[in-house]
């Protein structure tokens, strides 16, 4: 039972983890001012407020008399314990809570405020109501049962976990047992070598697993805000291993984890570093061009690089792939609600002053965006039930955060705000203005249907900004699961449609649904653009770029 429960929790969390999304945090100030706005609203519209209080009173009366049929949403797993529905006291407790939550929501939705203020207020009210859920209290029937089953040990364990988290985890419930994994030991174990290193990145070449390889190598550019080993997590969940076993020469970039000293690193620095890496890959493989893959913010970086190369008329990149990348930042996510001019400016100034943006702080903000999946279920599991936090590699990776240099963070914020990639010449990197329509090579684009970090419609719109021929594929999963999508998953689905229409909805309506993973589909797409087969090289690197050390290298270990 506990095991199954653990899997559920981690599954739920991994569908919702932030992944790399270097945007704005929500300043506590904004939350407070929104909370004040909510409180003011009660006084400003007394009649409206009293009406809802009255309606709540009626609903509670029904609950007390046992005549209420209010029930939790079917996908709300919190109240799945039968006690909540069978025990009359517990049922009344739950129904009162649900009625209160519902009434608060209708009250604010119908309040006399601007739509944006209403959305913000809903967010703040949700923060409060979710925190006060009956399941988060010591009265939670599951917790009481555990208490009796274990003779009180669960309470002791829970308090121990609480104390540990207060000391080591900034008071947030641990999402994962951080001692269960070690990078290079049981994560990121695919064989390879670091063949090039500069200030900004390490370039890892993976050892071919086939006798023959295609001429044209693949270079993977991960996001800057997480460690690279999402592409080489475990032997089963490793895109790098999948590529080398599919006859492709595979190189992956591992970004350095910047500190205060790298405050001034911006997009141009990253692009210059990538240009060096590309030259190294071409020199090692003897190919005249390569195929690239950029994920999330790594995709933004890759596309900027391609625009820069197009401006220089250099043809070093033959084709490329974008994974869950948003270039057209006109998105409506929860974060965007709070991202006004002032908070963006404040976020930029804060990170510039401290030199870096801490990935940990970022993760915290996003945890509060989905408190039920990322905070309260751990609260229940770790503290109330006294269980150990789950052992789950994706969550370990997600908690192994990196920092972002202040300048890059500032530029990402600026990209988010002014959306320059949608206009030719509006972004200038390494001294050249960029026009994405001039990027004419074929590209492959993947988005996730259930991705609320980079919504797939935004990815779709972004794909239309580029000048080359696009193969757009929609996976049925969330942000990270879209990347980690090894073949053989019976539930795996993806949609393809060779007709790029104007409208994402229309594209999806006319799309073909395919089973299993997009990895295989993508492999065939890569093979079609990979040149001829040749014998696999016997050694990694070459005389100019000798193998320096075994994968996963040094930078990945920098905490």
């Amino acid at each position, binding site marked *: 039972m506990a095991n199954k429960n653990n899997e559920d929790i981690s599954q739920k969390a991994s569908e919702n983890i932030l992944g790399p999304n270097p945007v704005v945090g929500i300043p506590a100030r904004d939350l407070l001012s929104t909370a004040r706005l909510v409180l003011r609203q009660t006084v400003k519209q007394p009649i409206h407020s009293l009406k809802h209080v009255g309606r709540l009173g009626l609903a509670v009366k029904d609950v007390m008399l046992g005549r209420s049929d209010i029930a939790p949403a079917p996908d709300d797993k919190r109240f799945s314990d039968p006690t909540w529905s069978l025990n009359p006291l517990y049922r009344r407790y739950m129904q009162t809570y649900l009625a209160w939550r519902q009434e608060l929501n209708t009250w604010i939705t119908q309040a006399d405020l601007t739509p944006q203020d209403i959305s913000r207020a809903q967010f703040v009210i949700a923060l409060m109501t979710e925190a006060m859920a009956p399941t988060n209290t010591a009265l939670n029937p599951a917790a009481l049962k555990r208490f009796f089953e274990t003779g009180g040990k669960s309470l002791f364990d829970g308090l121990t976990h609480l104390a540990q988290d207060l000391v080591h985890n900034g008071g947030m419930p641990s999402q994962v047992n951080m001692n269960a994994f070690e990078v290079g030991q049981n994560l990121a174990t695919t064989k390879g070598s670091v063949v090039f290193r500069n200030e900004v990145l390490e370039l890892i070449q993976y050892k071919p697993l086939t006798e023959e390889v295609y001429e044209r190598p693949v270079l993977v550019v991960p996001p800057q805000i997480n460690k690279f080993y999402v592409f080489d997590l475990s032997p089963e969940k490793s895109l790098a291993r999948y590529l080398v076993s599919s006859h492709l020469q595979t190189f992956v970039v591992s970004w350095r984890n910047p500190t205060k000293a790298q405050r001034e690193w911006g997009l*141009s620095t990253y692009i210059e570093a990538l240009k060096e890496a590309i030259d190294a890959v071409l020199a090692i493989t003897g190919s005249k061009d390569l195929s690239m893959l950029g994920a999330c913010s790594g995709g933004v970086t890759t596309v900027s690089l391609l625009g820069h190369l197009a401006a220089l008329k250099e043809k070093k990149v033959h084709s490329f792939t974008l994974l869950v990348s948003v270039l057209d930042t006109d998105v409506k996510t929860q974060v965007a609600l709070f991202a006004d001019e002032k908070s963006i400016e404040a976020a930029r100034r804060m990170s510039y002053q401290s030199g870096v943006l801490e990935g940990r702080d970022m993760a915290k903000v996003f945890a509060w965006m989905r408190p039920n999946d990322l905070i309260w279920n751990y609260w229940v599991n770790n503290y109330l039930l006294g269980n150990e936090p789950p052992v789950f590699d994706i969550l370990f990776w997600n908690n192994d955060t990196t920092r972002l240099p202040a300048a890059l963070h500032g530029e990402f914020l600026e990209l988010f705000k002014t959306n320059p990639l949608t206009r030719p010449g509006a972004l*200038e*990197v390494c001294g050249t203005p960029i026009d994405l329509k001039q990027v004419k090579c074929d590209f492959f684009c993947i988005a996730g249907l259930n991705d609320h970090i980079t919504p797939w419609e935004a990815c779709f719109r972004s794909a239309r900004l580029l000048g080359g021929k696009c193969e757009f594929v929609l996976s049925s999963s969330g942000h990270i699961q879209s990347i980690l999508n090894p073949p053989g998953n019976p539930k795996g689905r993806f949609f393809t449609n060779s007709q790029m229409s104007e409208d994402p909805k229309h594209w999806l309506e006319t799309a073909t649904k395919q089973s299993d993973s997009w990895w295989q589909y993508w492999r065939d797409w890569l093979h079609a653009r990979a040149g001829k087969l040749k014998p696999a090289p016997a050694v990694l690197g070459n005389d100019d770029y000798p193998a320096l050390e075994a994968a996963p290298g040094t930078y990945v270990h920098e905490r």
Partner: protein
Amino acid sequence: MPQQHFIFRTIEVDGQFLRTAVRPGQGNHTPLLIFNGIGANLELVFPFVQALDPELEVIAFDVPGVGGSSTPLTPFRFPGLARLAARMLDYLGYGQINVIGVSWGGALAQQFAYDYPERCKKLILAATSAGTVMVPGRPGVLLKMASPRRYIQPSHGVKIAPDIYGGSFRRDPKLAKAHAAKVRSSGKLGYYWQLFAGLGWTSIHWLHRIKQPTLVLAGDDDPIIPLVNMRLLAWRIPNAELHVIDDGHLFLVTRADAVAPIIMRFLAEEKQRAVIRPQLVRPATKP
């Protein structure tokens, strides 16, 4: 070392004449504004400016009552001076700048960084302190400092230089002569006004709110401001790093070649910053 030119302008700001000197640079660095020490005219920092990267634009000026600037009839305080400096920058057409403050000018630099956070990008403090709340130097040294005589009578300056400036001045008598030769006095009153500005001034209660990336440079043989004061600054300013130099109070001038690279590294920015142009939006009509 190619001959570098300074552009001198004397401008009128708020009824004050201010003598300014700008060493023009290339556009890709944030310009650096220098706040000089007490009684010191802007020529005294030229050796230091020459040592900096020629691409860096540098602005120096004589505070009221020093060098070529006019002496006000009434005393002034640091907040007023910081405002005057901001007005001067407006006049010369500078937006965001980096600031370096030396000794007495370090106090002004702290005030400027605190009062104009959006204007001052990075802050460098050299041989300075948090004002009244400090560990003072030896009384004899401070007494010598309390008089402008060394600026008015250069031979006296040469005599006392080893005691008050320490470091290289103890070892090399020629230094003091060279230093004294550049001094351009403006009379006693200006010096006393400057002393008065520092009277009772302290930054200790708001140092923790200076959020700029800050470089604190200290000489380890500084008779005027003992090293411990600089340690205090670096400890209180949240984003500060301390760098100790093996010299006396005027290391910026005597060790210019050693200090300049440290400063340039701290001020370094990307060579080719990404430029992001906002969309031109027509103002929305009010509903």
